[in-house]
C-alpha cells in the first residue's frame, strides 16, 4: 500500500520512503518520516496532486511522489 492509493479521509502510518527523487530530503525536512501518521484530505480537481495532513499541518504533493511513500492503513 502506498500514500497515493489512500482515499480521502483514510489514515495511515508511513512504513518506508523509497527513492523518490531529489526532493526526498525536502519532504523529510517537512516531517514526512518513517513512523509518521498521515491522513489524506483531498484530491485536487483534476486528480492530482493530493493534500495530506501530517504533523498538524497540511501538505500537498503529487501522486507520483506519494507512490514512493509506503504506508500501512490504519482505520
Amino acid at each position, binding site marked *: 500500500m502506498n500514500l497515493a492509493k489512500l482515499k480521502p479521509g483514510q489514515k495511515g502510518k508511513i512504513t518506508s*520512503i523509497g527513492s523518490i*527523487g*531529489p*526532493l*526526498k*530530503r*525536502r*519532504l*523529510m*525536512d*517537512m*516531517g514526512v*518520516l*518513517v513512523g509518521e501518521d498521515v491522513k489524506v*484530505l*483531498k*484530491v*485536487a*480537481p*483534476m*486528480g*492530482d*496532486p493530493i*493534500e495530506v495532513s501530517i*504533523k*498538524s*499541518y*497540511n*501538505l*500537498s*504533493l*503529487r501522486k*507520483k*511522489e506519494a507512490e514512493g511513500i509506503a504506508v500501512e492503513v490504519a482505520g
Partner: protein
Amino acid sequence: MSNTQLKYKDDEQAAGGTPAVARTITVAVAGNPNSGKSTLINAIAGTRLHVGNWAGVTVEKKEALFEFGGRKIRLVDLPGTYSLSPYSQEEIVARDYLVHERPDLIVNVVDATNLERNLYLTVQIMELGIPVVMALNIYDEAQEKGYRIDVKGIEEMLGVAVVPTSATKKTGLDELLKRVLDVADAGAGRAPRKLSYGEDVETAADYVAEALERNYPSLLERYPKRWLLLKIMEQDGQVLEKVNLPDQGFLEEALHHLKRAHGEDIESIMADVRYSLASGLTREILEKPELRQTELTEKIDRIVLNRFLGIPIFMAAMWLLFKLTFDLSAPFGEWIGAMTDGPFKRWASAILTPLGAPDWTVSLVNDGVIAGVGSVLVFVPVIFAMMFFITFLEGSGYMARAAFVMDRTMHSIGLHGKSFIPMLLGFGCNVPGIYATRTLENPKDKVLTALLVPLMSCGARLPVYVLFVGIFFPNNSSTVIWSLYIMGILLAVLMGLVFKRTLFRGEAPMFIMELPPYRMPSFSSLCVHTWEKGKHFLFKAGTYIFAVSVLVWFLLNLPWGVEHKRDSYLGQAGAAVAPIFEPVGFGTWEAASSLITGVIAKEIVVGTMGEIYAPKHGEEKKEIPTLQEDLKEVVTSFGEASVKAVKTLLYLPQPEEKEEDRGGLKLAIQGAFTPLTSYAFMVFVLLYMPCVVAIAAMRQEFGTWKWAGVGLLYQTALAWGAALIVYQGGRLLGLGG
C-alpha cells in the same frame, strides 16, 4: 564569512572600540515559511514589508532599523526555510546570511500552531552557536484552538528565551524586545545549549571534530564549529564544495559505523535524530484539547477544492474580482476624468494666460500634461481596487489553493502549481511576479515562469481595457475584461507547451507545498499593502508618464507649426509603422504611435491617445463656469460618484444616465475603432512586449539579456498573431470590420 571580516570584528572587541551601548545590534529574524516573520517586523519597526498567507512571500533579505530602549536595533527579515539545508534560491539567501554574516542574535519565529515542524528548524538554528530568542508567534490562534503550551518548559529544555507573541494583534512585542536586549548584552554567555543527538551521532561527530582539528584547524575558525561538523557529516553539497576538503577518508570512517547501526542514508538519519528531538520536546510542552472541532479551513476547502467545483470556482472568483473592481472604481474614475477634462484645464488656462504665457505653453499644459497624465489618472481607482483584491487573496490563503488546483494544468506544461503564484501576482504588476519566481527550486522553472508572467494582464493594462470596453461593450464590461485575463492564462499554457518542446526539455519538477489555514486579513493591513502595491502607479504617473506626455506633446507639435497631427514627427513615425497593423485591424497612425510610446509603460497607450485625440484649440465650450461653480462641481460630483459606487455594490437600481458626450477622446475612439478592432487592439496590448521595467527585472534576475530578449520577441510575435486571428476570424464570422 571571509577571514578579513572576522578579524575586523575581533579587533573591534579587543580594542574595546565602540561601547556596547552605542553599537547597532543586528538581529536576524529566521523561521519556517509563513510563521509571521515579516508581519512581526512590520509590527515592531513600522515597516511595510510584503506579507501574505502562503509559504515563500519573502524572497530576499530586507532590513529594518529602529530604536528600542535607547538602543539601535537592525532587524533582518529572511526568507522562511524548513531547514538549514536549503533547496531554493531564497532559502540559500537565508542560510548564507546566518552562517556567513553571523548576526549578533537570532530571533527564531515559531508558529505556535505547528510546533513540531518549527522546532525542527529551531534545533538546527541552535547548532549555529549564535544566541537565540524564540518568538512563539501566532500564539492567538494556538490559544483559540485550545492548545496549552508550557513556555517555561521550552526555555528550560532548550536554554533559550521564549516569548509568546502575536504579530497581528501586536502582543508580546515589547517583552520580546526586552529579552532580545538582555540576551544581546549577556553576549556569548547566552549561546544556546548544545543538544545531544544520541550516542551514535555524537561519537561520529567527535571523530570528525578531531580529524578537522588535526588537519584543517583554519576551517573551524571560519565557521560555527558544531554546524560545520554536522554539515560535513551530512555531506551537504554546498558546504563541502566551499570548504573543499582534499581528503575525505576520515568522513567515510566516521560514518561507517553510524550507517551500519541505522541502515539508512546519512540524510535520513540526521533528519530522524533532529525530528525526534523536536517531537520529544513537543510532547513535553504541548497539550492539545481532546476534541477537535471541524475548523473553518476544512469547511471552506470542502467547497473551494471540490473535485468538480474547484476550477469553476476559480474562474468565477476571477470574474467576480473584475466585476467588483470595475463596478466599484468606475464612478471615481469618471469623476477624475471629468475633473481633468473640465475644471483642471480651465484653471490651468486661467492661471497661465494672465501670466502672459504664450499659447503653446497653455497647450502643452492642457493638451500635453493634463490630457496625457489625466487620461492615466482616470484609472488609478481601478488599479487600486484591483490591488486591494489581490492583497486580499494573498492574505486569505487562497494563493496556495490556486496553486493546488492549477498544478495538474501547470504540470502538463512542464511547470508546477507553485509557478502559478508568480503568475497570480503578475496580475497586479508583472515585476514582483518576476521576482517571485525565486521560490521555485529549479532554475529552468524560474526562467520559464518568468517568461510566462508578462502574459498575465497587469494593472497597467487595465486603463486600456477600461477605456475601450467602456466605449464598445458598456453592457458586458466585466465579461470582456475577464475574457482578456483568461486569454492571457490560456496563452501562457500554450506558450508553456511550446517552450517545453523547444527551449526547456526535460523532467517536470516535483511539487511540494504547504497549504496554510485561511486567515482573515485585517482591514488596516489590507489598506497598507494595497497602498504599497498601488503607489508606484501613482509615482509612475507623476514621473515618467508625465515626462512622456510632455515628450509626446512636442512630437505631436513638431516640426513647429504643423497643421495636422498626422504630419508631426510622432504622426510620421506612427504612419510608417501603421501598415504592420493593417492586417490586424488597426492600421492607423494614431494606434501605431500609441503602441510605440506604450513600450515604456502600457498605461501610456491611453495617455498618448488622450493627447492625440485631444480636441483642437478654439473648439472650447461657450460658457466658462466661475471658480466657485467649478469647486462646487468638484465636491458634489465626488459625492455622486461615491453614492454610485455604493449603490453598485449593493445592486441598487441606478437612475438612467443621460448620454452626455464626455470630451473628444471617447468620441474620437468611437470613430476610429469598431467593437471588433477594439478587441483586437486590446488583445495586442495585453500581449505585446513587456514594459521596460519588466524587461529590466528579467535582465536582473537572470544576469543576461538573453531571456529578456526571448520574451520581447516571442510576445510581440504572439501579440500580432493573436490580434490577427481575432480580427480576421471575427470578419469571417461576419462580426464586421
